C-alpha cells in the first residue's frame, strides 16, 4: 500500500465491476501487446520516509551552502536575506497546491497576489505594466527581443552589449538564431561602460532594438541618460535588463529613461539561490505594447454583485487561444516565485527596499576600497558599482578560490572564459549577508595568496 494512493484492492474491485471489466489490465488492452511492459522498471526500491530523509541528508551534506560558508559570488544569482515569513506564507497549501487561476471565483487568493505583484514590480522597474512572470531573466530577455521584432516589423539588427550577462546572451542566441535576426555586439570602453560612439555609429533604420544591462555584468553602472539621448533620434526599441533586482531599491531603472521593454531576474527579491532555480523572469513594458506582451496578465474587474475581483485577462494573446500565432508558447510560468517576491516586497516596503540596497552598496564599497589596496590587486574599472565589481588578481583565480575554500569562503567568479581579455579577473559580490569581519578576513587571505 502506498500512502499517496488511497484506494484499496477492495475499492478497485468494486470500481472494476462498475466499469464492466475483469481486471485492471483490461483497461490497457488497447496498447499493442508487443509494447506492454512485462517486467518492472529498473528503479531503486521504494523508501520509507525515515530512509528517504536519511538519504537526502546524506546527499545534501556533499554540498557547501550559505548556512556554513561565506559567499562572495554573484554573476546573476545573489545570496540575500529572505524574511522568515516568506517561506511560511508560501507554504500555505492554498497557495502552493493551487493551479493556474483559470476559474477566478475560486482563485482570488492567487489572482490578487498576482495583481499586487504586477503593481509593485512595475513600480520598482518604473514601467507602465508587468506580466505575471517568465521562467527566468535570460528567457525573459530572449522573449523581449522577439517581441521588439514583432512590433517593429522592419529591420533585422539587434544591438547587444558585450558587457551583458553571458548566459542571457547565450539563451537569446538559442531563441533567435533561426529568425533572421542579426546580432551586433556593442563593445565596452575603458571605463567598463557601453561604448557610446559605437552605438551612435551603428544605429540605423535596420535596427530593431538596443539592449542595455544595468548594472552590467562587470558590476558597472551605465550612463543610462546618455544612452537614452542617443536612441531618441531613431525608432529602435530600448530593452533594459536588470539581473540584480535589489539594485533598483537605490538606482534609477532603465524604465526611467524610456525603456520600451524591461526584463530581468527577480531572484534577489526573496527567492533562495537553490542551485540555479526556480527563479523569476521579470517582464515589463510600456502600456502601448500591452497586446504584444508574452505571458499571463491579471486585471481588476467586478463580479455580478459589484464587488471588486481579479481575473486573468487579454488571454487572446496566449497559446491556449491564439495557438501558433500566440505572443509566446509560455503556459506554466513561475507563479509561486512571483508570490514569494510580492511577499518580500510587501515586507520590506518603501523604506526596507532602500535600506537593504544601501547596505549592499556600503558593504561593496568598503570591500572595493579595501581589496584594491591589497598589494597585487587592482580594480579593473573605476566606474561606480552597486554590489559587484571586477578585480584583477596577481595569481590565478583557482589558487585564490582554493585558499578561500579552505577558510570556508566561496570566492568571486572568474569571468575569463567569456572575456579572455580579462584574464585573472574575479567578479566579487557583497550583500547584506556579508559582515565587515568577513570582508576583512577575505582581504587577509587575498594578501596571503598574493605572496
Amino acid at each position, binding site marked *: 500500500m502506498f500512502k499517496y494512493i488511497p484506494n484499496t484492492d477492495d475499492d478497485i474491485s468494486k470500481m472494476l465491476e462498475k466499469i464492466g471489466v475483469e481486471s485492471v489490465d483490461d483497461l490497457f488492452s488497447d496498447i499493442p501487446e508487443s509494447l506492454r511492459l512485462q517486467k518492472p522498471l529498473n528503479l531503486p526500491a521504494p523508501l520509507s520516509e525515515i530512509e528517504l530523509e536519511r538519504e537526502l541528508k546524506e546527499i545534501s551534506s556533499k554540498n557547501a551552502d550559505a548556512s556554513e560558508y561565506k559567499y562572495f559570488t554573484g554573476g546573476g544569482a545573489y545570496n540575500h536575506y529572505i524574511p522568515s515569513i516568506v517561506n511560511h506564507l508560501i507554504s500555505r497549501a492554498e497557495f502552493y497546491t493551487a493551479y493556474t487561476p483559470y476559474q477566478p471565483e475560486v482563485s482570488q487568493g492567487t489572482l490578487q497576489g498576482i495583481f499586487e505583484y504586477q503593481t509593485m514590480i512595475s513600480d520598482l522597474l518604473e514601467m507602465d505594466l508587468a506580466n505575471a512572470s517568465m521562467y527566468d531573466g535570460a528567457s525573459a530577455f530572449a522573449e523581449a527581443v522577439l517581441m521588439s521584432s514583432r512590433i517593429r516589423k522592419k529591420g533585422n539588427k539587434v544591438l547587444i552589449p558585450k558587457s551583458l550577462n553571458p548566459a542571457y546572451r547565450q539563451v537569446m542566441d538559442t531563441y533567435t538564431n533561426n529568425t533572421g535576426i542579426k546580432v551586433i555586439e556593442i563593445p565596452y570602453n575603458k571605463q567598463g561602460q557601453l561604448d557610446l560612439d559605437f552605438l551612435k555609429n551603428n544605429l540605423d533604420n535596420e535596427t530593431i532594438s538596443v539592449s542595455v544591462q544595468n548594472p552590467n555584468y562587470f558590476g558597472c553602472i551605465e550612463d543610462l541618460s546618455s544612452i537614452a539621448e542617443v536612441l531618441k533620434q531613431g525608432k529602435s526599441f530600448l530593452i533594459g535588463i536588470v539581473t540584480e533586482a535589489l539594485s533598483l531599491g537605490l538606482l534609477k531603472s532603465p524604465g526611467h529613461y524610456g525603456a520600451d521593454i524591461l526584463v530581468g531576474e527577480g531572484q534577489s527579491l526573496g527567492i533562495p539561490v537553490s542551485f540555479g532555480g526556480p527563479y523569476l523572469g521579470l517582464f515589463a513594458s510600456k502600456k502601448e505594447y500591452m497586446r504584444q506582451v508574452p505571458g499571463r496578465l491579471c486585471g481588476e474587474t467586478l463580479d455580478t454583485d459589484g464587488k471588486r475581483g481579479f481575473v486573468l485577462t487579454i488571454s*487572446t494573446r496566449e497559446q491556449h*487561444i491564439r495557438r501558433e500565432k500566440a505572443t509566446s508558447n509560455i503556459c506554466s510560468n513561475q507563479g509561486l516565485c512571483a508570490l514569494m517576491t510580492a511577499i518580500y516586497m510587501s515586507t520590506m516596503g518603501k523604506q526596507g527596499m532602500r535600506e537593504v540596497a544601501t547596505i549592499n552598496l556600503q558593504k561593496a564599497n568598503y570591500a572595493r576600497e579595501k581589496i584594491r589596496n591589497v598589494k597585487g590587486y587592482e580594480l579593473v574599472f573605476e566606474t561606480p558599482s552597486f554590489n559587484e565589481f571586477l578585480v584583477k588578481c596577481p595569481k590565478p583565480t583557482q589558487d585564490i578560490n582554493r585558499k578561500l575554500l579552505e577558510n570556508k569562503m566561496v570566492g568571486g567568479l572568474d569571468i575569463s572564459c567569456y572575456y579572455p581579455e580579462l584574464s585573472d579577473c574575479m567578479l566579487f559580490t557583497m550583500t547584506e549577508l556579508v559582515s565587515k569581519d568577513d570582508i576583512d578576513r577575505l582581504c587577509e587571505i587575498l594578501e596571503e595568496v598574493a605572496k
Partner: protein
Amino acid sequence: MYPNNLKYTEQHEWIDPESGKIGITNYAQEQLGDIVFVELPDEGKELALDDVFGVIESVKSVSDCFSPVNGVVKSVNESLTDDPSLLNTSPYDEGWIIQIDFSDASEIEKLMSGDDYKKYLEEVS
C-alpha cells in the same frame, strides 16, 4: 436580421455596395460573444480578395476578418477602439469596421443576398 440592401459572405461578414462599408453579421457577433478588442488596418492599405484586414477578439476567442473584395481601405471605424461592444449591439450600423474603395462592383454582385445568407445559416447551424 439580415438587411437585403447588404451583401453577405460565408465568413459571416457583410458589405454595403453603396458605401463600401464592411462589418460582421449578427450571427457572427452572437457566436463570438462579448467583443473586447478590434485590430484595425491602416487607411490606404491595399487589400486583395480574402486578405486578412483585421482581427476581432472576444474574451475566449480570436477571429480574422477577410476582405470580401479587392480594394483599398478608405477609412476605419475609430469608435471601435474605445467601444468594441458596438460590434455586439449594432453590427450593421455603428459597428461597421472598415470602408473600402473597391474597383469592381461585380465582385459584390456575386455575394449572397440577405435571404441567401439566411438559408446558408440554416445549413451551417
